[in-house]
């Protein structure tokens, strides 16, 4: 749920990076944090275990410039991927405005990708939201690994709705900003559509 504040002249939007454990969600946020000028982003919060696995969420606030005199601010969250952190994932998804699904391209992670995608749909449904109605994009990460499945195959398996999709190597930053910019655009256009009653 976006928060439009006429007093501070800000549009605040919530984006969630979802996907299986170890797929590269935290790596995406870290790269964005490193490559953004300090005056356009806040502190990155990582609520993680001692072994660096996300425990509750990671959080990164980003300023994305101005629209019609309003500062556009995105709040980026990641969810913990492991199966047993299901309650945390549901909490983070609440009131989401847009989603990046970070899939792991490795063949041995296909079941984990499908399971996570299903899990996401279930949690959205619990909030009364259909995935088709949420602005979201797909990222196929870890393209550098030898067991990476062909992108077309991944697409057939994981992207039946045909949402925008990106190949990525998050550790090197490849595809990270393309993914972010696209989802940000889709979210803002969707907001605009809601206010202009359908629109183009």
């Amino acid at each position, binding site marked *: 749920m976006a928060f439009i504040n006429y007093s501070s002249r800000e549009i605040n939007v919530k984006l969630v990076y979802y996907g299986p454990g170890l797929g590269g969600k935290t790596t995406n946020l870290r790269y964005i944090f490193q490559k953004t000028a300090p005056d356009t982003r806040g502190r990155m*919060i990582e609520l993680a275990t001692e072994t660096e696995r996300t425990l509750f969420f990671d959080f990164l606030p980003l300023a994305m410039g101005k629209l019609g005199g309003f500062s556009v601010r995105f709040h980026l969250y990641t969810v913990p991927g492991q199966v047993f952190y299901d309650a945390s994932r549901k909490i983070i998804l609440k009131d989401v405005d847009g989603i990046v699904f970070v899939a792991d391209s490795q063949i041995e992670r296909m079941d984990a990708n499908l399971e996570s995608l299903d899990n996401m749909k279930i949690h959205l449904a619990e909030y009364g939201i259909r995935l088709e109605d949420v602005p979201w994009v797909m990222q196929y990460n870890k393209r550098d690994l030898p067991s990476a499945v062909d992108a077309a195959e991944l697409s057939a398996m994981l992207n039946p709705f045909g949402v925008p999709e990106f190949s990525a190597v998050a550790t090197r930053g490849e595809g990270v900003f393309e993914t972010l910019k696209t989802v940000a655009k889709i979210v803002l256009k*969707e907001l*605009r559509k809601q206010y202009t009653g359908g629109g183009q």
Partner: protein
Amino acid sequence: MMLEQQMVLFEEDFEKIQKLCQELAAETNAKLVFLVDKNGQLIATSGDTGTMDTTSLATLAAGNIAATSGLAKLIGEKEFSILFHEGERDNLHLSTITERLILVVVFDHRTSLGLVRLLVRKSSRKLEELFAEINSKKGTREQNTIFTEITDEDIDNLFND
């Protein structure tokens, strides 16, 4: 659309909210008062926030409330509507107001938990009334023009380097 209605806050309403937060800070002698959306968005602050990272504070306060209400449900409670964290110097009092809001008070030895509790309860009622009034005006507002004044091209241009 299926997505939930957005939250829109106008200047005049913000000023009323801000005033209630300031009153609470003054009456309790608290260091800081924050009003946060359960989603982690900061709505209003009062007191000297100085170098404090208010964005992080808002997010973590919301995370804290969300996690403990998860715990509450597990033991058959609806939620824990008040949380108190005691530090060596500063203390944190978090309480939920309506379905959507969290009131955060940061205070030290210059006041007491009892007084904070009492006055938070009083302010909560006022804030509840205020938000009921704000919500009842929703939909009749024509000032909410930001998204009708911009175009899809403006949005595209935002991301051109």
